[in-house]
């Protein structure tokens, strides 16, 4: 029961990633693409946490946290670059 629901959740997350990547390719403006990357990173944090649950490894949560820090920095750095702040 619970596993089936988790599988369904995985399918939904996969579709979300497909949508975000489509936006990343179609873009139209650079800000759209960066926003898509931002969404992808948040989804990735959830996915790493889910993987930690599936593999039953507590320490993978550290990976999610470090990934969150780095991706936040990446988006802020890109934004600062775009507004000619660097």
């Amino acid at each position, binding site marked *: 029961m619970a596993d089936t629901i988790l599988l369904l959740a995985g399918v939904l997350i996969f579709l979300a990633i497909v949508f975000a990547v489509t936006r*990343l390719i179609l873009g139209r403006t650079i800000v759209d693409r960066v926003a898509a990357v931002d969404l992808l990173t948040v989804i990735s944090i959830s996915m790493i946490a889910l993987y930690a649950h599936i593999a039953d490894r507590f320490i*993978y949560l550290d990976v999610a946290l470090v990934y969150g*820090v780095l991706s936040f*920095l990446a988006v*802020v*750095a890109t934004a*600062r670059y775009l507004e000619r702040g*660097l």
Partner: protein
Amino acid sequence: MMQRLPSAIAVLLLALIFATIAIGHAEQTVLRPLAESYVRLVPHELGAPNVITGILLTYRAFDTLGEVAVLFMVAAGVGLVLKEPGKAGARSASDSEAAQPASEIVRTAAQILVPLIAIFAAYIIMNGHISAGGGFQGGAVIASAVLLMLLADPSHKLNSVFLSVTESLAGVLFVLVGIAGLIFAGGFLDNRVLPLGQFGAFFSAGAIPLLSVLLGVKVGCELSVILDRFRA
């Protein structure tokens, strides 16, 4: 449409690669002989549950020292390449005129987040022998905190003298611990100069936590220096 075709194909191929990885993925359960001997030896000889850190900071600690030296060379080389003696001052002045300051929200958020990232980096460094992490990873997180500070305030001056002195001091101490291993234990950078302690406890695995701290400080300082040089 036509000019988007190559990028679409590239993304599809990338998706294919990831799909094969994701579908064919299974946690490796059977170890090869070398891996098995390491998995058996590291907890027994070094008292470190994290085999990778045990290998990196004891069996292959000399290589780690070399890697940090390479990083140091990179920091020095970036400084050498990017430094333009005559033009540097004038260029940075014109840049600061054009540069837009970060918004107040980003600046405040940086002030709030930097201490939190710093304590997390300290956690990663100190727990290298028990869980995932270690000196290199923690040092990179320290550098990311410094990067956040620089993003929020591009005119911020890093104290490069302090950074260089700390970095050199950490390097010297690292080598001194190694020499202590040569004198008091089995060889250069042997971790058994300190008691191994109880397996899995916070203070255990001999000198590995100490080496990890020194490595983290050194890597953090070096990466910060590189960031600082790229900005100028």
